[in-house]
């Protein structure tokens, strides 16, 4: 069961997305800001991080930079998730070290496909 760390400050988004991922067989761990995300990532070594970018305490760009700068966590793929859908955002996320980029509102099949590719899993099946 792949373990996902979801870093998201919005309580509704955290609840909604984590439940949808659990329904699809993922184990989901949560962090509410970038600093907690970095700490949890180092402690839990998840298989993949879904990182909101607009976060309090430490934003998602900085948190991703720190994850990618740490020897024990740099191999962990990070998917940036943001409601910033303007031109240049994806490049900015990539520059911080994000391996993939998704905009909110989340299109779950597309997010799952990116997760499967990064986790080297078979393409996702429809929801149970």
């Amino acid at each position, binding site marked *: 069961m792949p373990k996902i760390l979801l870093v998201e400050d*919005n309580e509704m*988004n955290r609840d*909604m997305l984590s439940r949808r991922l659990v329904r699809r067989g993922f184990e989901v761990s949560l962090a509410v800001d970038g600093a907690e995300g970095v700490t949890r990532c180092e402690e839990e070594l998840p298989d993949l991080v879904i990182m909101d970018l607009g976060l309090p305490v430490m934003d998602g760009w900085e948190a991703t930079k720190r994850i990618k700068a740490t020897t024990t966590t740099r191999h962990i793929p990070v998917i940036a998730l943001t409601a910033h*859908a303007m031109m240049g955002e994806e490049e900015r996320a990539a520059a911080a070290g994000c391996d993939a980029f998704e905009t909110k509102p*989340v299109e*779950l099949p597309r997010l799952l496909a990116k997760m499967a590719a990064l986790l080297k899993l078979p393409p996702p099946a429809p929801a149970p």
Partner: protein
Amino acid sequence: MRANRSPPKLAQRHLRLPADTEELRALRHDLRTPINPLLGYCELIVEEAGDAAPGPFLAGMRKLHATGAQMLKLTNEIFSDQPSGLRQLDCAELQCEFRGPAEAAATLCRQLEQQAVVAALPVAARDLQRIGVAVDRWLKRIEEMLEENCR
């Protein structure tokens, strides 16, 4: 309270979005953010309730999802670089364009929440309350945006 504030006086004023990129970026982010739980919870409720839910409830959920998609389309259109009929409207008309789907979504939420309670779907009922909160936040931010940027 859900989506039933009285509209401020915005007639004959037009939307002038901030020239500052960061300000525009933040505004767009603020307006797109509440639509994520709206659409996501709609999809989750249909997944979780599945065959246990009455047909009219599921039809109502699909209608609520479509209304949320309309709110997203309006939000994207306002910030689009492409010419849009929306941008030609004065702010009072624009406000009506935004309030229409928001009020429809708020009404649907209340109806579906009651249906979920009757159908013994307590998790769906709670999630519908959350959708109602997201709709409220979206409309509140739209009205703030109009107040701040209509001249």
